[in-house]
């Protein structure tokens, strides 16, 4: 595992596909990066020479990724909530934001935001001993220093970032 810009990357994968594991870097960005640094397409991360690793980390550090990107996204959502916009309200509710109909669909938004649409609620599926639903997972206690209204306000942001970790 190569530790790069705050993330552990899998060694045995090809370089572009390993770089995808960084938050903020997708396949296209990763591939363009490899082209700029002349990394051959079938190069695995463990075979990368030292100078190319340093070049990679230099370029990655100049990009907005990981913590900085998460912060920016969080701030954007918070701004929408703060100004009292419709979109902010939808974020708070955990419902689709982009004007979709909720009568037939909206399941992704609801599932990701703890509205009880986890796998155990799907028709035709047997109950599992574990669940991947955000609703079923135990929620971390809210920090006591925050007031309740602020906690409620940042709840969608916490959900947004926490969903990958099963919160």
């Amino acid at each position, binding site marked *: 595992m190569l530790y790069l810009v705050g993330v552990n990357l899998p060694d045995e994968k090809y370089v572009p596909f390993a770089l995808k594991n960084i938050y903020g870097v997708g396949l296209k960005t990763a591939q*363009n990066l490899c082209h*700029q640094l*002349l990394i*051959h397409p*079938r190069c695995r991360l463990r075979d990368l020479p030292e100078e190319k690793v340093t070049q990679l980390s230099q370029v990655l550090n100049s990009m907005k990724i990981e913590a900085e990107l998460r912060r920016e996204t969080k701030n954007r959502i918070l701004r929408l909530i703060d100004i009292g916009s419709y979109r902010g309200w939808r974020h708070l509710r955990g419902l689709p934001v982009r004007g979709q109909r909720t009568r037939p669909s909206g399941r992704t938004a609801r599932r990701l935001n703890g509205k009880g649409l986890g796998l155990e609620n799907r028709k035709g599926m047997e109950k599992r001993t574990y669940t991947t639903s955000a609703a079923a997972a135990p929620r971390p206690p809210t920090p006591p220093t925050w007031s309740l209204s602020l906690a409620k306000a940042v709840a969608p942001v916490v959900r947004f970032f926490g969903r990958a970790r099963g919160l």
Partner: protein
Amino acid sequence: MRLAVQGTLVKWSTRNGRSRAFSCTAVNGGGDANSVGDFSTVFFDKFLMNSLLEEEQPLSLRKQKYARILETKAREKAEDAAQPRNSPPTAERKSAGPALALGTWIPENANENRILEPLALPEDFLSSISKNYPKYLADAPSLMLRQTTLELIEAIKKQGDKKVSDSTLVLDGVRGTGKSATLMQVASHFRSSGWLVIYIPRLLEWVLGIEPYEKAQGELFNQPYLSAKVLESILKINGRALSKIKTKRGDSTLEELIKRGMTRPELAQPAVEELFIELSTEDESRPPLLIAIDQINGFYTKTEYRNVDSSVLTADRFTLVRSFLRFLTQEHQVKGAVVGALDFSTPQISSRFLEHVVSQSPSYPTSRQSAPRPLARKYQDLSVVDKYGVLQPKDVTPGSYDSVADKKDIYPKGIIRFEVPTFDRWETASILNFYKEAGLLFARDINRNYVDAQLLFTGGNGWRLFRATHGL
């Protein structure tokens, strides 16, 4: 009764890895590699031979020739049996397969009398190309000697007799007819005859993006580790011969030159270029050089590599490929021959441009030439306009969209197309017989009907025949 088993052990296993090891031991017993092995007794039993020969009279020239060859073989066998023989103790059998006595690929065996026989390639040649066989020939070191191979050997000898070689022979033919196999046999033949050989069995690895690359001067790119590997393979194939040849300046041998490039990758590409300059200078004392390149379409194909701006790189942007292209463009002329084989089995390496050029080139006159294929629409012209002067779209003339077509400085010159035909009935019978001997066709009676059926289903295509029998 099997002859002496001392000799090289040759394995044959199925293409998809299910290993059935059939050890076919090459005959070196009795010290006479020319002796006709046990194989010939069951080679064509009289029934099959007569049924193959029995057609409308008079017999065609080819059939007369085959009949003569078989008679000679039978006579030699009878003479052999008459001589007293002391057989050395049998060597340990390494696998459960039957022991076949096969002749080996030595230059003396490449004559008309040994046609239709599977001959084992020499062990040192095989180890020198280090399992780097063409794709479906993996683990199949016994190859049948065909009339086509002999004709190619003749053609190369003619090239070698000239002062310098002014043309490139390119093996063409439908997918699976045996271009790679023929090239392998020929490379082995000339190596055993004392020529210098540069044999590249798989060009695919150069363009797939497996090797690291870096920017070189101008628009070009280097592949330093690949250049080192190529130098290593040249040294391995030629063995001692290179240590006897001195460079132009006289201060070192070619072997030292290669070793310098092998050990340090950053010096590999300059070493390759220097080596090629040395090899193309005239020198009467030096043996002739054979350059045999399989998958030669790879020199004109698009690679998987990308430039800094993410544009696709064609193979000619790499310095190693350029070094070899100098032989195709006649910039370097060798004393010897340059032979290539097209490959239609690998889509990553296809080059419409080269396939078009080869199909338009003059053909070498061989004994079996198929009817000229009608020119496929896609090759009609590399930039076609209709009567209004509008450039035709890609699906109508895909040839006009080959990016290599503009690069006139790397166009191959002096290409001679050498057609590798499909098997005829005799060759099919021989190959099926060999498979049966090797234990691959259980409970099959190789008779005229079976041979004809296989010929019908596969069209005499060697690859299909291989697959069909292994699938049983």
